[in-house]
């Protein structure tokens, strides 16, 4: 098989592959920045919870309007914000908080699945949980692109307080007179998850958000460097995953997340080895 048939042909012949690729690249742009900040804040569990919190909201959107991307997203945003606000109410103690968040996400997930199964079919359930990256239409693509652009612009504007807030939140609060940067960031996470959610579903949306960022973090670059590398990893995983799903006739969303996971594994081992070897090489 020639390189052309391997890499170019799938996108040349099939419009939905092209749309899926562009959507994934747009998502990678937003996810690289948001995911890196999420990991630096050690808030991956919070991301997890928000990811699943989107489910019941999306389910209500589905009950109201059927599988329309706009209503699913609006419902998802409402659900995400609702749970983000509720999560702010639970205790400050780490153990208590973690337990509370896990309870939240299990409840949100099962409630969402129940709601969809009540009126819809098993296929609808699968669609909400795992997404349908190959059925993204032009309107949904536009929506993904707009949300991703907004996220990237907001992070560019608020880069310093967001970065400092994940390093030394107390300092930022005292120095900046308690500007609500934490809340802004929660909004960005919800937006990123909702943007990802048509492509990857509520269960997998966290994959493209966290895995490329986690892979980039292994290489111990600065904050901006990590974001850039995470975006690159996200784009590479999207391309690899789509090709894998095309040639192997596999579901695309999981293939992309799996590719990102592979990148994380390779980065983790390679960066670890490099750090150990570096002193030996002098």
């Amino acid at each position, binding site marked *: 098989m020639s390189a052309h048939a391997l890499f170019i042909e799938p996108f040349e012949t099939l419009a939905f592959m092209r749309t899926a690729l562009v959507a994934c690249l747009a998502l990678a742009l937003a996810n690289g920045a948001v995911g890196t900040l999420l990991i630096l804040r050690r808030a991956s569990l919070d991301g997890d919870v928000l990811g699943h919190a989107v489910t019941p909201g999306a389910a209500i959107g589905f009950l109201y309007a059927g599988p329309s991307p706009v209503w699913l997203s609006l419902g998802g945003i409402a659900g995400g914000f609702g749970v983000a606000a509720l999560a702010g109410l639970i205790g400050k103690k780490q153990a208590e908080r973690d337990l509370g968040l896990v309870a939240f996400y299990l409840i949100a997930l099962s409630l969402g699945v129940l709601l969809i199964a009540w009126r819809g079919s098993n296929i609808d359930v699968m669609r909400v949980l795992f997404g349908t990256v190959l059925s993204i239409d032009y309107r949904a693509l536009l929506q993904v692109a707009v949300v991703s652009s907004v996220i990237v612009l907001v992070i560019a504007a608020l880069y310093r307080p967001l970065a400092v807030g994940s390093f030394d939140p*107390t300092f930022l609060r005292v120095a900046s007179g308690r500007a609500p940067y934490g809340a802004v960031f929660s909004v960005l996470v919800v937006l990123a998850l909702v943007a990802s959610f048509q492509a990857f579903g509520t269960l997998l949306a966290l994959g493209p958000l966290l895995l490329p960022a986690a892979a980039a973090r292994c290489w111990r670059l600065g904050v901006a460097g990590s974001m850039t590398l995470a975006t690159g990893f996200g784009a590479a995983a999207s391309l690899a995953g789509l090709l894998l799903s095309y040639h192997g006739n596999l579901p695309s969303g999981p293939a992309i997340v799996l590719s990102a996971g592979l990148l994380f594994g390779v980065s983790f081992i390679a960066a670890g080895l490099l750090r150990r070897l570096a002193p030996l090489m002098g």
Partner: protein
Amino acid sequence: MVLLRRIEGADGRIDLRDVTVRYGRRLALEAVSGEFVSGSMTAVVGANGAGKSTLLAAIAGEVPLAGGVVNCAARKRLAYLPQHAAIDRDYPISVSELIALGGWPEFGAFRSPSAALWARVAAAAETVGLAKRLTRSVDELSVGELQRALFARLIVQNAAVILLDEPFAAVDAQALSVLLDQVMQWHEKERTIIAVLHDLDLVRSHFPSTLVLAQRCLAWGKTAVALPALAA
């Protein structure tokens, strides 16, 4: 200039009236009242769980008050150094960037730090003995070096009120002397300093005033007079 300094100094007063803090049902601070005079240097001592850290956090506005008032005119010029558990040491930030954060009031969220600020960062690093480590990443620093870097950030911050929570815990003797020197310099410049400390010999030898806490205020005044209340 002299007048300006006096006005600046007058800003550093902190007035506590019946300051009460609760964590859930537990009372952490109960009706603490009194005044940190501008330019004073006070050690806060007491047993574990006496509310020492809580008092500092309350002054910094980091914990909500269940009752009472903290009056601090210099709230905008207040520096607060919590115990280092609060800082993520694994974070990809260089020592110079960490120190430069002290200039936050000057550059804020959007402007870029000026050349003058970077010069002050270098000078502050020199003062605490970290001049050679400016380009290093924070995760390469030892506990003592990190504390030195945080002190350098305080130097750059140039605050009127400086709150230090166990600033000398887990630092070696050499770092201790450098950091203590710096505290004494701030004192000479009439900054208001409040430090939570465990080492009572250090309190006796260097801190003019002492506040003894056990949820309530047991004693507050000249160290020689107040400190015996701790044993009683």
